[in-house]
């Protein structure tokens, strides 16, 4: 009986083991990485700016241009887990006087008059088993821009970080890399100084930040 496979089949078999398997593995790993670890799947970057109702709110104009403090609107950032999304009343505090006839602010006025809250689209959305607290981070020297990026430059807000747990742990393991003095917390363009590690260690001491063994406990964020 003639052989079913000719000699070349051996080479193909070997090739498929030594090249094919790694290639398939590589593809699988890439797919896994892309869908579970990449910035793309978490919609990071200006290309994924989150469209807001009524044309949205320009942080670039209010923070970058008018130099408003973050806490004017996000007023519970220092006392609560939630930084707070401002009520329509907060908007109207200025806009009953400023640009009070602007068609762009029609949706804000409608909300105020009709008592219907504005339904903003969430930009940073943590899973329900993660309990992030703004107040402690702000109190212990983590600035807004460390997670939210340079908000002052964003006409429409987008994510600058994918918020993977490994990224959280980068800081919880070695906070000195990111700590800044209290005066710089709300500075949206803060850049670390050249001797950040040295400064950071000093700040860590000053803030009384606990060691990484404690900061990386599961119960710090999960419960």
């Amino acid at each position, binding site marked *: 009986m003639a052989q079913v496979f000719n000699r070349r089949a051996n080479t193909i078999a070997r090739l498929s083991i030594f090249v094919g398997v790694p290639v398939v593995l590589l593809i699988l790993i890439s797919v896994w990485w892309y869908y579970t670890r990449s910035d793309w799947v978490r919609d990071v970057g200006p290309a994924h700016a989150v469209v807001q109702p009524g044309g949205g709110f320009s942080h670039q104009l209010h923070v970058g241009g008018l130099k408003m403090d973050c806490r004017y609107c996000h007023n519970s950032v*220092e*006392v609560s887990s939630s930084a707070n999304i401002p009520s329509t009343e907060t908007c109207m505090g200025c806009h009953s006087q400023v640009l009070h006839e602007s068609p762009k602010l029609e949706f804000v006025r409608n909300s105020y008059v009709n008592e219907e*809250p504005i*339904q*903003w689209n969430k930009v940073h959305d943590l*899973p329900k088993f993660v309990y992030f607290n703004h107040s402690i981070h702000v109190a212990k020297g983590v600035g807004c821009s460390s997670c939210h990026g340079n908000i002052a430059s964003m006409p429409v807000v987008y994510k600058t970080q994918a918020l993977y747990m490994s990224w959280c742990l980068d800081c919880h393991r070695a906070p000195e890399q990111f700590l800044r003095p209290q005066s710089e917390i709300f500075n949206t363009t803060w850049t670390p100084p050249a001797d950040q590690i040295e400064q950071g260690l000093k700040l860590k001491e000053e803030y009384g930040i*606990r060691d990484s063994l404690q900061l990386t406990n599961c*119960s710090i964020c999960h*419960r």
Partner: protein
Amino acid sequence: MSKETHDIQQNSGRSYWRSLDDLVQSSEFQERLAREFPQEAAELRDPVSRRSFLKLMGASMALSSLAGCQFAIKQPQEKIVPYVRQPEQVIPGRALYFATTMAVHGYGIGLLAESHEGRPTKVEGNPDHPASNGSSDAWIQASILTMYDPDRSQQIIKDGQPSTWAEASAALATAAAAAGSGIRVISEPNTSPTLAALVASLPAGSTWYQYDPLSADNTSTGTMNAVGSTNTIYAFDKADVVVALDSDFTTTGPTALRYARDFASKRRAHSAKPKMNRLYMAEPTPTSTGTLADHRLAVKASAVGSLTQAIAAAVGVAGVSAPSLSESESKWVASAVKDLQAHTGASAVIAGETQPAEVHALVHAINAALNNVGSTVRYIDPVGTMNTGINSLAALVSEINAGAVSMLVIADTNLVYNAPANFNIAEIIKKVPTVVHFGLYQDETSELAQWHINAAHYLESWGDLRAFDGTVSVQQPLIAPLYDGKTLIDVVAAMAGNASSTHDLVKNFWQGVTGTDGYAFDKNWQIALHDGIVPNTAAAATTPTLATSFKAPAATTDGLEIVFRADPSIRDGSAANNGWLQEVPKPVTKMTWDNTAQLSPKTAEKLGLKRGDIVKLTLEGRSVDAPVFVVPGQSDDTVVVHLGYGRTKAGRVGSSVGFNAYAIRPSTSLWHGAGVEITKVGEDYKLASTQMHTDLEGRDYDIYRAKTLDELINPHEEKHAHHEIISLFPEWDYSKGYQWGMSIDLNVCNGCNACVVACQAENNIPVVGKEQVWMGREMHWIRIDTYFSGDAEHPEIYQQPVACMQCEHAPCEIVCPVAATVHDAEGINNMVYNRCVGTKYCSNNCPYKVRRFNFFQYSDMETPSLKLQRNPDVTVRTRGVMEKCNYCQQRINEARIDARTQGREIKDGEVVTACQQACPTQAIVFGNINDPSSKVVQLKALEKTSYTMLDPLNTKPRTSYLAKLTNPNPELGGTHGDA
């Protein structure tokens, strides 16, 4: 049963047992224990049930995909919805607490309700309120679930058709005007001064009846006959000897929380020279208070009268002769009397509301003879209405029969279900031309009414109530009525043609009372709302004038006696649709989702009955079928049935659960009576009692420790030598930071279940249903284990709360293949839900059996109203993950973050766990064991009593116990019960 009793008699080697099966080590029990989860393994091998299992899985998979869990790579876009106008003081992410008041048998219990952005999620006791002292019970804890119950009545109904409040209020006013003096209102007891004033404004001749199937009428009548006053207040914090005559005073009635606290304060033996009070209890069936007793005498309910008479005769109450008693009874009475007489002015005798008025009258005479009046017993002006029981209902019935009633408003009380069986109340109500039903549910009674008005829950209502001592507190709503419900004040006001809001009515009433207005009033009003009490409103003390002659209580009845009792969990049945209360294992029997005909082991044997048999109970020609449960420590010749079950229109949870004991409860034998017939009609009723889910495995001393006060003061030689055990596991460094620990004082725990339900409310713990409980899949993070010791007839009964021990050497952690349960630096064994893959290895390896697994999607993720109840600080678990107690991690984190943002350390007592907060006797203490000044450290340092469970396993639990202490009278021998 005869074999079992024989075995019991033969058995003397074991000191504790959990159930009668355990005591005799029946083969069924052993087989059940051998399986980790009853039935599960066998079920999978059995082809039929395996198929149905797969079918079930298929169905739940189909459901979960229908539920909107579409395949998506990216997270769905979520909305974030801020306020239009943010209310003052509301900070998103931070809870607010408001004082309010809940009615228990009509009396106010002051509460603090936790509100998250406008939705109440939990209630706690108000520390400033005399009736709660900051604690609560299972009933109060579960009330929050009732508010969010999707089965609540959601609209006004007229003749079966939806209607509106505008129509209803107009119709009420018209009907009331037409009815004139024929208006009758019957409600559950209510001490609201505003409501009383409104009812008084109804047309002349109209009457307000109050009816409670669990009324304490006997108490008030007896007190009135004896001392000319209706309201008695005991000061158990001053009583060294307490004699309770069928009185479950630490868990029953509007005074229970206060009495439990006061009683426990006399029971702590922490000082160098420990002292304890002594409790004598005579009762037909073991109650929570009975488990605290030093000398518990199981007697027929009808025998309590003779005991009281004997005590009265012995302490010298004029004109009372001593009845003849059995040997054990007279021994118990003699010792109790001697003890009482040795503590005149510092003792107290109390009778339960189930005992007839004559017993109560005698009790007051006894207290007077013992010089207790003025010290441990005082009398005050009446707070509530005296008649809230059968007399009041009988008067209404006779008025209806006489045709005097043209309009009847039935408020909050479910007469068709809970009226005495011989009243035939449904037919009576049909005689009234206009019937208005007002209540939280469309129930058995609402069917007979032309109008049904849906009630607002107390957390949705304005109102006012008086506490047991008369203190007024304002009921303040936490949320706008979910279904636009009305209050009884609204209904009565509408009848009187008054269209003001409840808020205005209450406020105006108090404005009238205080005689102030404007700022002067508003300021005090705001203070009263904030504090939860109106200062200086307690009722004045009255000087009792003791009657000169007393009627002798009825003699003990012969033969089998039926005893009706409120269910320990769902009480009168009004909360039957509350899953938390249905599923919480009842004290002592650990029964869930059912009531039973309880028999003592001897009586069961005599009648040839065993657990799970179905019997027909016949009383005065009416009968009901009930499953049998054999209860150790119950009196012989007694069938105890609990009220509250067998509802037909309770809702999806509470309908068709258990049997309706009201159906055989005659007005002549409200609490107990002779002449019951019992016949077996079936067997093998499936009872979901959690008592048989675990076993001591012969490690009694390591699990539960009990000793007498005498042994504490004069310790015997230590039988159990302590060995230093070396661990193979690396030690953690626990010297730094906060190290959390807990101490549970077994000496004051009465097993009331407040902690169990409080934990359920705090930690979003689901309800699983009877079938799942029967399989051992209950989800409670904290359970109360009941242990018995001694013989089956007169056991000592012990209660032990068990939650995760937070072992320093945790056996669960080392077996988890995915590191889903790991230790944290503060000594807490963390459970990471998002890592858990559901191997259940941790549960297998847990010696305390405190881990709970979500076999199915137990948490209701669909019902909108139930979602509102959830604590936003705790993850709602999904199917397939393990869960367990984590010392209320969310509360620790909140305190830690607050302390750290303010640059300080957490103070002792700043973190209070949910179980600790609820506990009426303050048995649970939690704190930082690295802080030498903390209370928990001081308790753990009590060498003679503090111990950790299963110490030889070297798991180093963070939760320790203080041993149970009893203070037996040396004259009665070492143990109680066998007096």
